[in-house]
């Protein structure tokens, strides 16, 4: 269906805007259980802002939601080309959801390039809302259309609404004293108003937000408000939309919620760990996509006593963090893959000095500069092995945007307790994506008790007392930590191999071997201090941990491990880590709904693995590991447990969508998966085998 707008209708829209958007037409919205909308436009069109505000309003209205900003690396690629298309996808729902969805049912396309690059994502029968004004010859050509798709049969399978957003926006801004060129910039608010009407979103929260966001810029407030109201009124009066929809609120556990991105949650987790350990936070960082928002967030939290340094390079950033750790602060450095590579030598120094340090890697598409704004989980092996010498360190990874909070807290806890650099592997998908977060009670967060050495710990034969920096806690193997300023405990530490206990330089071969083992045992021993693996079964969860339980949301039932494994339990286990959680759990539910039983385990601790992982894996005949890389966890599991696993791979710098995983799981249950070492979800790519 295509509809056209007459000037008369446009005039009516303007009329309605004047009456302050009050409804003249009663129309009962049809209830939807979920909705996936994709906003797409030129990088300068404000699509991220539009999508974010639509999300906030939906959050207020009690929907569960998940978002996925998808934008180009170039700040402003040539306007009007497909390279410059910036998109924001959001799924809102009346039940708990774990992904931003696939197959958006609505695409808002602000120009031909947005339509060109995004149309393939919209299933037939979907709704397209396009800014008709931009479909002129020049823009069509820039977008690579030879003919105007609004005028031929290209879009026959879709419901298309052609709305002259630019001209209508200009029109309503005319008497607001805004110059036409500036008025044009408000067209995204017209789109937002229209969508808000169509999906029965509250208008007040957006109007308030405009006032706050642009405080002091009257002209912009006026223009955006007018455009937003006009878009809303247009929906109401234009008589082109047969129905409007509502997504009722979801049944989330009771409490106070906020909508949070992974990078913000991660920053807050660090602040919380600082408060709970009573140690000041120091962030050394160098700007890099997609990690910079953590630097921004913490730099704006100076009233928490956090000190931030935008260093001259990645190496200086981690060195400064290590220096701060030596002084008794929580040293943190945040970066992405290329930065982790540069920080490798200092990370090695930290493993040798045995000082706490948190290294946050917000992974992105690689190698090299790769796809800086796109997601990938390809740094797991880098985190494991990316240093010279035997230099193991703990690795943790959040599974959802809000889980970044707890995992950051956990990374600090491990780093401080075990005096070790600790790598936290987030990714661009978690960093920029958002979801509702049930606010924790600050008082419920555990204390992190760290004691600095204040007394001598060694007595020489002649009775002289001394402080030896490499005397350890027999339980944790963490060394005694005396900070500068402590009277009498002066000592030197360095990157040269140290004599056990005294910390003096030592070239003794057996001492080196002993120290290598002690450092490895210390990291391996952390397994005793972390929760067992979380397994989700059709009946409920086994070994739910504080890191996963929040995610289980409606599925909080505990299942006895003995009972589950003594019964006729599923023979197939899906094992995941990191941000694949959303897509995997959604796919697992879909599979179960078809009456097929599979189990699902997810790792938040990658090094060391939970102590019971090997035993749990041995319970299954088939283990499937989907990753946004070429099988890095699968490689580790095969090497450590000497079992075969099915490695599922996707390296399109895009997250999995549930349907492609569902297909894989169904094929696996039916015994139809190929025997390849790595199985690609992309059917056009032949599967690879190294054997």
């Amino acid at each position: 269906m295509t509809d056209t707008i007459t000037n008369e209708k446009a005039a009516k829209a303007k009329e309605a805007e004047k009456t302050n958007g009050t409804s003249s037409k009663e129309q009962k919205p049809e209830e939807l259980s979920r909705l996936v909308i994709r906003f797409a436009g030129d990088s300068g069109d404000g699509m991220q802002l539009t999508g974010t505000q639509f999300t906030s309003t939906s959050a207020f209205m009690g929907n569960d939601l998940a978002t996925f900003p998808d934008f180009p690396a170039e700040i402003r690629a040539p306007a009007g080309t497909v390279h410059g298309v910036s998109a924001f996808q959001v799924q809102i729902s009346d039940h708990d959801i774990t992904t931003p969805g696939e197959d958006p049912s609505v695409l808002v396309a602000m120009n031909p390039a947005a339509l060109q690059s995004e149309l393939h994502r919209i299933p037939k029968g979907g709704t397209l809302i396009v800014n008709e004004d931009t479909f002129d010859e020049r823009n069509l050509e820039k977008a690579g259309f030879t003919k105007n798709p609004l005028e031929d049969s290209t879009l026959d399978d879709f419901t298309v609404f052609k709305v002259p957003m630019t001209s209508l926006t200009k029109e309503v801004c005319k008497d607001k004293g805004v110059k036409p060129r500036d008025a044009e910039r408000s067209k995204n608010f017209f789109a937002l108003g229209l969508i808000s009407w169509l999906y029965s979103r509250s208008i007040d929260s957006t109007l308030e937000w405009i006032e706050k966001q642009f405080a002091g810029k009257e002209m912009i407030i006026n223009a955006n408000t007018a455009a937003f109201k006009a878009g809303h009124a247009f929906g109401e009066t234009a008589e082109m939309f047969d129905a409007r929809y509502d997504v009722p609120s979801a049944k989330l556990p009771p409490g106070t919620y906020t909508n949070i991105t992974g990078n913000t949650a991660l920053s807050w987790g660090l602040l919380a760990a600082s408060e709970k350990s009573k140690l000041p936070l120091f962030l050394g960082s160098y700007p890099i996509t997609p990690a910079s928002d953590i630097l921004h967030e913490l730099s704006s939290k100076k009233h928490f006593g956090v000190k931030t340094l935008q260093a001259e390079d990645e190496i200086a950033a981690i060195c400064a963090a290590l220096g701060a750790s030596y002084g008794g602060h929580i040293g943190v450095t945040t970066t992405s893959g290329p930065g982790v590579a540069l920080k490798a030598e200092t990370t090695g120094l930290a493993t040798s000095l045995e000082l706490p340090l948190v290294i946050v890697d917000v992974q992105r598409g690689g190698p090299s500069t790769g796809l800086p704004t796109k997601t990938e989980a390809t740094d797991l092996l880098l985190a494991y092995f990316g240093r010279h010498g035997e230099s193991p360190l703990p690795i943790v990874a959040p599974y959802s945007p809000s889980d970044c909070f707890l995992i950051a807290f956990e990374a600090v806890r491990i780093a401080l307790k075990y005096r070790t650099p600790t790598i936290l592997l987030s990714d661009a998908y978690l960093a920029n994506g958002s979801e509702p977060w049930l606010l924790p009670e600050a008082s419920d967060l555990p204390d992190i008790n760290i004691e600095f050495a204040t007394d001598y710990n060694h007595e020489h034969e002649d009775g002289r007392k001394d402080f030896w920096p490499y005397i350890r806690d027999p339980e944790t193997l963490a060394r005694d930590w005396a900070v500068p300023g402590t009277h009498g405990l002066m000592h030197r530490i360095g990157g040269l191999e140290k004599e056990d206990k005294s910390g003096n330089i030592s070239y003794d071969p057996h001492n080196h071997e002993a120290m290598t083992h002690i450092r490895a045992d210390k990291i391996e021993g952390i397994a005793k201090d972390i929760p067992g693996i979380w397994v989700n079964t059709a009946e409920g969860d086994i070994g739910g941990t504080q890191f996963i339980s929040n995610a289980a949301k409606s599925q909080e039932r505990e299942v006895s491990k003995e009972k589950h494994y003594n019964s006729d339990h599923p023979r197939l286990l899906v094992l995941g880590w990191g941000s694949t959680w959303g897509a995997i759990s959604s796919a697992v539910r879909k599979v179960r709904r078809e009456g097929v039983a599979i189990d699902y385990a997810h790792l938040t601790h990658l090094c060391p693995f939970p102590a019971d992982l090997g035993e749990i894996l041995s319970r299954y005949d088939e283990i499937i590991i989907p990753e946004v890389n070429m099988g890095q966890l699968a490689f580790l599991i095969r090497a450590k447990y000497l079992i075969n696993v099915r490695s599922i791979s996707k390296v399109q710098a895009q997250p999995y969508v549930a349907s492609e995983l569902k297909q894989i799981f169904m094929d696996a249950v039916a015994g139809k998966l190929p025997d390849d070492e790595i199985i690609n979800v992309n059917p056009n790519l032949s599967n690879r085998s190294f054997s």
Partner: protein
Amino acid sequence: MSENETQETIEATSKEVEELAEKIPASSNGATNGKTTKEDWTSDQIVRWCPGCGDYSILTAMQLALPELNTRPEKTVFISGIGCAARFPYYMETYGIHGIHGRAPAIATGLAIARPDLDIWVIGGDGDMLSIGGNHLIHALRRNVKIKILLFNNQIYGLTKGQYSPTSEVGKITKSTPLGSLDEPFNPISIALGAQASFVARTHDMNRAHMQKTFKQAFEHEGGAFVEIYQNCNVFNDGIFDGVLKKDRREEMLIQLEDGKPITFGANGERGVAMTNQGKLEVVDAAGNEDRLLIHEAGRHNPTLAFALSQIARGPFEPTPVGIFRQVRREEYSDGIQKQLDYAQKSKGEGKLEELFNSRSTWEVK
């Protein structure tokens, strides 16, 4: 925050440390709270530089200088990178980190920001600080972080056995440059001035008293300090500074910079530095040029003359200035950071987690 308040914060931190100190029993190890001696600053490690190396006299000068300063071993940290000079921290009875190649200024920057109550010294050679760590050096200096950087310049790589360094003269024949090096050498003083260092001085390993005095001046300077020390590597580059440092040459070849005085040198001050009417500096006979002689002022904010002075010798074979080239007041970096923290706390109130969690739009689910 006023400077007084900054001082109070620093004192408060030191007070906590003092309180901590009282809990710890005094012992034979480390100084008690009285005045320190050289022994209190000397660790039990055997010093392992080559016999005759210039590093020994620098170590002694430091161990003699520190008891004269208003500091204590537990408040003092030596941080180094990699190289012969970088072993220095092991020999000091203070806190210390022997770090990785080139990164000492960056490690020290983090520590200085975290702990403004500490006295931090950074030790490194010409390869460490000007080659692999050049970036960190200039950024530490431009930020004016309160760290005292001592660059032991011996114009060679010692620890890796004798390759040419970024301060080696053009044409240097070494194992890695059998036909002579092609690279124009860095002038460390010029680099520090170019990086806007607030304290820049040069001393040398043949004059312990001058080193002690220079270390004291660097220590007492309120901000970051950079000191180049001409240091003889008697194994791989022996005598490279003989042109200016040999006992019988010092008087005629070293230009002692003294604040507020005309720049003269020689046994009887018979030579001096003057400015031509083109604005260039030149070495002249003092006699007859009295009114042209340059008056040295380390406190000039504009570094142009200090830079010209740093360039007056093309190498250690022409009359070479020693002493303080520049000493100006600039806000110290951790002071600036502390002021921002105080401002944020004053304007927003001390950060509380509950408030943080509720700082964005929230909604209730019943």
